[in-house]
């Protein structure tokens, strides 16, 4: 019903028919790039806004409400200010690395967005190893963080970066294994295929208990991946002032700030795609009337609704839990999540072999 492929196809037809192949490729890439950047900015800004409103709600406050209606333009004002703020160059800092770091972080998250399926056909690139691609790209961000911490010539930054490095590398394992569980179910790494395999039910429902466990592990590991919530050790305001981005000002700081929120969005959208059926509507088996109604809601809404839910849960984590300590954080990963995950993977492989899932 809401298939975007004809629309996307007509665009690409338009380009290929009007221009030579080279220019067509260039123009379509440019269009996509601009679209993704715009999308990135809007989502990033409004995630910041949402977080501020949600945390205000949890804390009996109002949150931003003066700039524009309901404070909707608050983050835009922040962006304008950050854009025009002085960029401080740190003496005796490694200038090249120092300037490069924010770009690595932000490029990693922009690249990951390219392969997220927002709706049927609404996907910049449908790689046949989509899950692997996203995992690989989004974990590149940690290189940016490490470089930022190292090049800042600041002791707090180094500690923050080292923490972040240890954390992300460890939790990458859980993240990957949790996704591997679902890949075992779906039998494909292509994101569109994974969604297709959920047409008769989302994996979180079809996959029995193991899928639920994998989802839980994924959420924890995902939160840790984004350096947020109870796992925000890399920044750890009360310990390391601002962690790895202590020395960054103006728009470079804004890059880190935005990338954090975009990473959260990416993690949430992968969770949506792999566990919660992506843009597929919610169906109840043999309840045709209800299902029809659900089908009526456009897939984009389904996708963003589910993503918003996962993001909300992650924000909820952040505003409720105290922060873990670095050794506890690593203990949680290596002593609990990893073994659970491996056993879970074995169980799921067995289930898939026996064809016991729905």
């Amino acid at each position, binding site marked *: 019903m809401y298939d975007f492929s004809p629309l996307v196809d007509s665009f690409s037809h338009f380009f290929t028919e009007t221009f030579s192949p080279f220019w067509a490729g260039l123009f379509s890439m440019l269009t996509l790039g601009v679209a993704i950047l715009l999308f990135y900015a809007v989502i990033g800004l409004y995630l910041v806004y949402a977080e501020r409103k949600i945390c205000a709600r949890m804390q009996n406050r*109002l*949150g931003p409400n003066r700039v524009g209606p309901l404070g909707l333009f608050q983050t835009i004002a*922040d962006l*304008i*200010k950050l*854009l025009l703020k*002085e960029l*401080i160059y740190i003496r005796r800092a490694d200038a090249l690395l120092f300037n490069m770091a924010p770009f690595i972080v932000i490029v990693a998250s922009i690249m990951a967005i390219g392969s997220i399926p927002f709706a049927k056909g609404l996907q910049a690139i449908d790689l046949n190893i989509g899950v692997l691609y996203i995992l690989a790209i989004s974990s590149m961000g940690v290189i940016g963080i490490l470089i930022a911490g190292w090049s800042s010539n600041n002791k707090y930054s180094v500690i923050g970066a080292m923490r972040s490095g240890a954390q992300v590398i460890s939790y990458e394992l859980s993240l990957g294994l949790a996704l591997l569980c679902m890949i075992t179910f779906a039998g494909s790494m292509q994101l569109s295929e994974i969604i297709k395999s959920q047409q008769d039910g989302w994996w979180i429902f079809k996959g029995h208990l193991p899928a639920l466990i994998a989802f839980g592990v994924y959420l924890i590991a995902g939160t840790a991946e984004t350096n947020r919530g109870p796992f925000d050790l890399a920044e750890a305001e009360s310990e390391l002032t*601002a962690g790895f981005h202590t*020395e960054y000002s103006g728009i470079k700081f804004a890059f880190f700030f935005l990338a954090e929120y975009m990473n959260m969005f990416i993690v949430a959208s992968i969770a949506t795609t792999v566990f919660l059926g992506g843009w597929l509507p919610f169906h109840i088996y043999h309840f045709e009337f209800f299902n029809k109604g659900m089908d009526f809601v456009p897939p984009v809404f389904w996708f963003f609704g589910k993503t918003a839910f996962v993001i909300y849960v992650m924000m909820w984590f952040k505003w409720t839990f105290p922060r873990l300590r670095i050794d506890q954080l690593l203990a949680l990963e290596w002593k609990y999540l990893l073994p659970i995950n491996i056993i879970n993977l074995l169980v799921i492989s067995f289930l898939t072999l026996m064809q016991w899932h729905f």
Partner: protein
Amino acid sequence: MGIEIKSMEYGDFNDNEALEELKKSGSNVLLSTVDAIINWGRSNSVWPLTFATSCCGIEMMATGGARHDFARFGIEVYRASPRQADVIVVAGTIVRKMAPVLKRLYDQMADPKYVIAMGACAVSGGPFYYNSYSVIRGVDQVIPVDVYIPGCPPRPEALLYGVMQLQRKIQALSMTSEKKQEGKSHRHRAEGKDVITKETSSS
């Protein structure tokens, strides 16, 4: 409590003379539009530095708390790193040992940066004006101040009003003129005496 508090119209806040003076000068249409956008952004997003020395800091925390809620104005993003902060609210006494540190903090901040002197101690030394061998009599001897908030300690409402004054002041500034440093008052020490020279009205 049963008291209905009517919200104050924005126009009801009277500008002080310094602000009126700043607003007077004109500039061309294009630049003033750009100015307006920039100033809108800057004035609505003043992030304070997590910095407090004494009692006023508690009232600053109370302002951030649920009842007064700083966040409504978009000021709740307390940054612990001076690089990312826009305004330093000097909440509390500054003593001779602290003054170089404060100066350094101010220098570490990225432009445009603003200073609010909160409380009697930061304005003038307050209760420690006389007989104290270590208290700096007013933070404006160390760094330029944009807005003074009297009180010991000022109520959260006073801080909110001070921040709103700062916002209005930012909106009156222009990027073309040399006004960035205007409207800040310094106090120079001349021959051991404090001489107050407000540089607000010079242009």
